């Protein structure tokens, strides 16, 4: 199940720097582990995380296998205007999750 948890304020003053914390359910299989029979478990990770604010990209991260399972990504953005923040996780094997959250800026 590709669950995510997004924690951010619902409201902010214009120009305020807000903090956004995200969690995504994903094993982040490194590609280095083997089964007990010695078979290599193929890499299967989230590769990219993008945050867009009313359609404009404001933050991006490229992830590698060294990112822990169920990745936490916490970052900041400036509250410029009311609208919608969109969060996208893209990974191997067609993994793609998008969630949105509204923000009121006044």
């Amino acid at each position, binding site marked *: 199940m590709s669950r995510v948890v997004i924690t951010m304020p619902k409201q902010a003053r214009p120009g305020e*720097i807000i903090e956004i914390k995200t969690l995504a359910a994903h094993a982040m299989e*490194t590609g*280095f582990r083997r089964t007990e029979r*010695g078979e290599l478990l193929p890499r299967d990770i989230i590769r990219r995380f993008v945050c867009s604010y009313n359609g404009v990209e404001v933050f991006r*991260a490229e992830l590698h*296998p*060294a990112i822990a399972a169920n990745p936490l990504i916490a970052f900041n953005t400036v509250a410029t205007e009311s609208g919608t923040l969109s969060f996208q996780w893209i990974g191997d094997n067609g993994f793609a999750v998008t969630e949105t959250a509204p923000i009121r800026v006044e």
Partner: protein
Amino acid sequence: MTTRRQFLLAAGGVGLSVGAAGVRAQRAPNEEALRKAAYQEALHKVVGDAQLRRGRVKLELPPLIDNGNSVPLAVAVESPMTAADYVKAIHVFTQKNPLPDVVSAYFGPRAGRARLQTRVRLADSQTVVAVAQMSDGSFWTDSTDVVVTLSACLEDGLI
């Protein structure tokens, strides 16, 4: 010299998610050197021949961690984050993991603060390095040493 960790991995203990490349009877004797070289190459890919200066970057990891599978990491860069002067990217590297790259985060003036918090996997006690790429083309760096120990009882993937 075979360290305890190498012996356990060879014996089939896979308590770590990131270890040597699989369970083998013997690890490459120069593996550490190979990984160090991979790190140098990854660093060079980002920085090129530009000067890498210490400062402005603050990389935080706990000095002694509870488990190498999930180590909290926070990196922040001092910057006004205006259109004229901002942090373009922060890159994090390790020197002893199977792969040197950990994460690259991309910022702009809209970020407000050039800061990233996440959790990483560390295969061994080592130095973690953060490199910040500024809008004026300069590169700044910080590094932190972390001690990583194995669990006392490896569970061999037992559920």
